[in-house]
């Protein structure tokens, strides 16, 4: 049967709609690439008086990937607080298109994502936290000059909350039960 004009029109319209709208959905996840640690430090300063939670992760790091949902839920857990969540990936820049971007798309991460491509790890790492020697996942919480560090994976939002609480003024939050997955 020969398709009618209206059918054809609808087909063309839906194809047009697909090309226009699909990329917007697929590319919803934005990220920044910082080639040097100064850019991350500038971003931290930009947060002003807000509490900043920085999670260092990578797509190849299983425990990191397991705990990502916890960090992604974090901002929503403290609606009354000025809190900024930065997910700083230590993936290789050369794997950007092959691994990093597909991962972000698949996970549909809501938080701010940064790819930190500063290769001089030995220099920048102690600027983040002196006692950190390189294992990930690692998390830093800071507010002004106050800073704390946690090595390893958070198993639940409650654990993460306990780490962040001292950096929140008058924290009185009701946490939704969210587990970070995995063991």
């Amino acid at each position, binding site marked *: 049967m020969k398709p009618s004009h209206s059918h054809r029109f609808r087909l063309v319209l839906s194809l047009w709609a697909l090309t226009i709208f699909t990329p917007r959905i697929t590319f919803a996840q934005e990220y920044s690439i910082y080639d040097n640690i100064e850019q991350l430090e500038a971003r931290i300063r930009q947060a002003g008086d807000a509490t900043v939670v920085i999670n260092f992760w*990578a797509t*190849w*790091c*299983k*425990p990191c990937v397991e705990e990502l949902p916890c960090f992604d839920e974090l901002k929503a857990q403290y609606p009354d607080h000025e809190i900024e969540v930065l997910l700083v990936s*230590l993936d*290789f820049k*050369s794997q950007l298109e092959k691994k990093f971007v597909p991962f972000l798309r698949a996970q549909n991460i809501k938080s701010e994502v940064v790819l930190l491509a500063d*290769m*001089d*790890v*030995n220099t920048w*790492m*102690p600027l983040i936290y002196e*006692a*950190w*020697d*390189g*294992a*990930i*996942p690692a998390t830093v919480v800071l507010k002004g000059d106050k800073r*704390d*560090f*946690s*090595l*390893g*994976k*958070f198993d639940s939002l*409650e*654990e993460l909350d*306990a*780490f962040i609480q*001292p950096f929140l003024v008058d924290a009185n939050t009701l946490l939704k039960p969210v587990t970070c997955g995995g*063991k």
Partner: protein
Amino acid sequence: MACYLKHAVYSKTVTPLILLIMKSLNLTTIILLAITAFCFQNWSSQSSYIVGDKAEDFSLMNVDGKFVSLSKYKGSNGLLVIFTCNHCPYAQIYEQRIIDLHKTYAPLGVPVMAINPNSPLVVPEDSYEEMQKRAKLKKYPFAYLFDEEQTVMPQFGATRTPHVFLLDSNLVVRYIGAIDDNPETPSAARNRWVESAVNAMMAGQFPSPDFTRAVGCIVRKKPK
């Protein structure tokens, strides 16, 4: 040294305990108990080696089914104790470099001793059987030991894979850290820290730097 690393995380579980004890004990005891509780939970405990410490003896199972002890290496010119594993992509990209380090320095009396510190209960790819397979496949020329009880890893304060500890002929720690500063492209490394450290040690000097940081996979502890 690093017992504060995770204290914040545990404060919630420890607090009720403290409140309970508070009823019957004085303040000093409470503080001491609290510190013990914090540090007990932490795995990069105070016993972590720093440069200058003498490594305690241990004995672990090699992939060939035989136990290998640290004391066996006393009298060699030194030893590269490298915590590494099967599953970690960073351990994998450094694997050939670890093999090459052994090939270069074993003939000079400074061999590599590789130790897998991960619990296969969490990472099945790091089981003893998988270690045997990998060692065979990649023709490891060095001992590849299994820290099954996870007792050696905290002694050294190994937090990640790969994590290198260079010991001298008296089993004193001379260097702790990374192999080099370019995980992706070995030939483009500006600093080959382990090579420099071994060379310095063999020349009777103190390695500089003697401590470096690098990205790596966190050691996976067995579930509590």
